[in-house]
């Protein structure tokens, strides 16, 4: 695949299309080293907590205990139930909307001209500023949270899809035409399959952005879910519980992303794309 694009998706302009940035590298290190790395992290955290560096800095062990406490009393489960619903809904909606919009823009010049600059701006700009607005309009609930997820997730999905469709392998297009492929066949059998790895990478980045969006919405406005759990324990100075909640959402997002990356490598087999 002769495409070289920054799948990082944070590029503000489309001018620089080098593939030099390197997010999402190196999940392939041996398991032992990873365990050592985790142990080291936990150790430093424990020591820092014991000194302590701050009255509001619990030890690692306290945090682990607090985590199991939250698991046991069900508050974590309740919080996640309320956080994950808008997250999943928002990501799914953004995926459908973003991939369709991106594909249309990649295929249709006028659409590209009209729509892509908006998303370039949204991608580079701190759209988080809209989240308080969204709650003003839609109140504190599922709708506002879902919209917060979409505001953050949509630009990266649209832009990745657009770039992938736009940079589709030219010689495959000619090939399809020479074997009498119709326009629909070209889109369905050449353009979308060729673009799918980059589109999927965009979806993965969209999921990462969605996590940011939902947590932010919950911290800023809607007193529910994980964000509320964090705020609640902070107000009661239960710092271990607060840290445990934060660590759990970071861990969940990381595991989700690692899983998606694994799927990506499995399904799209990047090594095979050189052909």
């Amino acid at each position, binding site marked *: 695949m002769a495409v070289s694009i920054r799948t990082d998706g944070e590029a503000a302009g489309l001018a*620089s299309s080098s593939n030099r940035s390197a997010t999402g590298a*190196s999940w392939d290190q041996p398991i032992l080293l990873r365990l050592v*790395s985790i142990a080291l992290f936990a150790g430093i955290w424990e020591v820092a907590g014991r000194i302590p560096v701050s009255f509001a800095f619990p030890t690692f062990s306290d945090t682990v205990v607090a985590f199991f406490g939250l698991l046991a009393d069900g508050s974590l489960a309740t919080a996640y139930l309320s956080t994950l619903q808008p997250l999943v809904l928002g990501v799914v909606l953004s995926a459908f909307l973003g991939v369709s919009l991106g594909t249309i823009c990649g295929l249709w010049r006028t659409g590209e001209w009209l*729509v892509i*600059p908006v998303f370039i701006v949204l991608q580079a700009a701190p759209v988080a500023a809209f989240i308080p607005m969204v709650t003003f309009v839609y109140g504190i609930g599922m709708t506002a949270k879902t919209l917060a997820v979409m505001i953050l997730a949509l630009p990266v999905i649209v832009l990745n899809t657009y770039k992938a469709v736009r940079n589709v392998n030219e010689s495959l297009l000619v090939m399809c035409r020479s074997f009498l492929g119709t326009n629909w066949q070209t889109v369905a059998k050449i353009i979308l399959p060729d673009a799918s790895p980059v589109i999927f990478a965009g979806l993965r980045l969209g999921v990462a952005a969605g996590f*940011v969006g939902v947590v932010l919405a919950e911290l800023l406005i809607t007193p529910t879910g994980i964000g509320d759990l964090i705020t609640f324990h902070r107000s009661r100075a239960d710092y271990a519980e607060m840290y445990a909640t*934060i660590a759990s959402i970071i861990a969940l997002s990381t595991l989700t992303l690692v899983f998606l990356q694994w799927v990506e490598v499995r399904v799209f087999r990047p090594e095979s794309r050189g052909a």
Partner: protein
Amino acid sequence: MTLFGYRVPMMASLLVWCVVWEVVGRLDLVFLLPPFSDVLVAAVSLVQTPSWQSATVTTLRAFAMGMALSIVIGVPLGILMGRVKIADDLLGMWVNIFSSAPLSAIVPVLMILFGFGEKTIVAAVFLFAIWIIVLDTRAGVRHISPSLIEMARSYGASRPALYTKIILWAALPEILAGIRLGLIRGVKGVVIGQLLVAIVGYGALFETFSRNFRMAEFWALTIILFAFALLIAELIERAEAKVEYYAGARQ
């Protein structure tokens, strides 16, 4: 796109959207969306208010400090990880995790550790920006061709000279790319930090405007912020273009 034979620049379509905004605002179609012209008027008067000026100074200062910190720490860390395997093995995983984690969840921790003030904002900018800088720097150092380093060695370069005269420069395109992405993330960090702290800089202004339904000013502030973010991205992209030539020549 071409119109009547002229090539219309891509970003020109934003003007079309401004017109749409104006019309939608005039017709009162969308709740809380005043006409674009009102927003512009509000922007002009907003930038003259002392509250905006002091908020801008606070925001810029926090942003600059956070970015400086993340560059000063991030670049050497990235070089270290690019050159020393054990550092890479131990840190790589965490840098990767934090580069894509929902860092907004950590801001409350910063608030209790650093207080409800500027320090928290600096820390938020740092936290948002550093990881991508580390990752890109590391990638840049990894891409340096071994023969370049062997060349420096064979001409008797000392260790410090190797790092400051060869490695830093050879990895510069990636480092700048990382800094550009870091700046964009940093802007997001400063905004998210201020929104959450809500009593500093733009966060306080946003809070005031939206609580009192001063929508024109709210949108004006948003536009100023967006323009600032785009300006930063554009500037660093220019700088990148200057080193681009040897990024290509290097391979």
